[in-house]
């Protein structure tokens, strides 16, 4: 039903209606493939959690390391200071990359579906729009779960390490982590979709991932 409603003279449809139908299509897709959708969301959540926890804790980690300055040589202490910064940067990059990989896989494994959509007359713009909607939904849901779980994880880790819980810039980091999750999902999905929609319907249907 959703496919039919997208196909029917989609160019003439007003944008809000089109958007509503795209969301409906994605909703149906997630509904029918619950297990399959759960995995990208989990990966995005894990990536976001990593990003959020590192963003939130890195300052406190540095403050706590400073307490050990007496037992570490100045050279080691300086190296540790730099190392914690690298930990933060690498966690950010890896969190983003894992999200990107899972979104790419999610698009590539559905190339045949794109072929079917194209064969039934759905325009390229709408196919791109559909997968973008999906990427935004995955990114947002995964990011939300990651931030909520990450808040608890960060708080518990801080409690266990005996650092005071006060003054966490939680909202800024949460917003940043969520934004990063959605943006990475969209950017990562864009490239494989762009490559796929340029194939003909037949090529897409016969394409094997």
């Amino acid at each position, binding site marked *: 039903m959703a496919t039919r409603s997208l196909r029917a003279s989609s160019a003439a449809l007003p944008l809000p209606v089109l958007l509503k139908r795209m969301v409906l299509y994605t909703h149906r897709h997630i509904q029918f493939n619950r297990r399959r959708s759960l*995995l990208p969301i989990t990966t995005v959540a894990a990536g976001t959690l990593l990003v959020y926890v590192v963003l939130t804790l890195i300052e406190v980690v540095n403050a706590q390391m400073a307490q050990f300055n007496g037992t570490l040589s100045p050279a080691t202490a300086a190296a540790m200071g*730099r190392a914690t910064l690298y930990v933060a940067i690498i966690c950010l990059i*890896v969190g983003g990359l894992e999200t990107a*990989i899972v979104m*790419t*896989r999610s698009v590539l494994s559905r190339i045949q579906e794109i072929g079917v959509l194209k064969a039934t007359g759905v325009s390229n713009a709408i196919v791109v729009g559909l997968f973008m909607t999906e990427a935004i939904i995955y990114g947002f849901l995964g990011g939300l779960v990651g931030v909520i779980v990450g808040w608890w994880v960060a708080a518990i880790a801080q409690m266990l*390490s005996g650092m005071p819980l006060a003054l966490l810039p939680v909202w800024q980091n949460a917003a940043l982590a969520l934004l990063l999750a959605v943006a990475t999902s969209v950017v990562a999905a864009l490239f494989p979709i762009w490559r796929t929609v340029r194939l003909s319907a037949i090529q897409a249907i016969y394409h094997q991932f």
Partner: protein
Amino acid sequence: MSIKLVKIALANLLRHRTRTVLSATGLALAIATVLFVNVIALSFEAGVTAVYDYIRQTPEGIANVWITPTGGFTLDADTGFFKTPAFMPVDEIDELKTGVDLSKGEVVQVLTESLPVTDPPLVIYGRSDQSSVWLSPSAAIALNAAANQSITLENIAVKVDRIALPDLGAGNVALVPLEVAGQILKRPDQLSWLMLRQEGLPKLRRDLLAAGLSATTDPTVTKSDGKAIAYFLEGRYGREDIVSFGVKFAALYINQASSTLLGWLAKITLALGFVLMLSAALLSIEERRREFGIMVAVGVSGDVLYLFLMESLLLFAGSTLIGLWLGIILLQGLTPELLDWGVVMKSMALVICYIPPMIVFGSLIPAQMLLQKSPVQLLRAA
């Protein structure tokens, strides 16, 4: 049979190159991150006890008894080096030698104290087995000294022979002969501690107790009745001694380090790495539902499981290798100072422990579950 299986699995992986590359990248990135974060957290822990390993060295091995004056030893927060709150006169040692047989091994006499001539303070570390003056690189910079040049410490001219000391807990260290340390520190005929490497420890312990010393394996014991304390660094004595000095010492300092936020961050990364890897593995099964459906429909379900397991094994092994390599490259490039191979090996072992649970939870169980479904179910869902 198994070689054929490997060949088919390899061919299958190569046929779906994009899919293989994406799964392997996902797995490898998770492994590299876990390795990187863990090595950093562990090196921090190792750095905290490096001094302990350093001071135990004797010319021919590692000391097994450490005798300090009453008050025990502490780690100086300013220098990161050990210090004793009190000093013992050399006479006391001579007295000790009459009652205790110290001929079965080595005895190293140590006098150490810090001088506020640099920042952090310069540790003068005098040892009876040292014949020349060595400076640590940071001390040489702070004192503006070079090898084969003389420097003046507390009005005593000292010729620096080498600038070569390992970078350990303390930054500014001058390793000097015992007599030179006595002159610089204005403590002639005084000692901070004795390091013994002796054979026949039970007899030595009895002798030391008879001479009136306290003998213990507990680093937190710092009080004795006036006389010195002998810490037995190896082995256990008596029923109450459950763990050795080294373990207790490590517990005292390392636990402090591993329960820091960095330690917890490493544990969080360890768990998240597993979640990321597991979801990457499960995704590669979900992507192949259709393939499984066709295989089951033509009746080759048993072999499919073996084939799939072999593929997963190859994929996991390959990505683990790439991930470990990537992690080491990152460590080498970003923090070469912290690259201690012992620590890296420990972290690598930790990461390799991931593989068996990954195979069970990431491929064996889910693949078995899929194969129990009817081909119609599998093909429809795909």
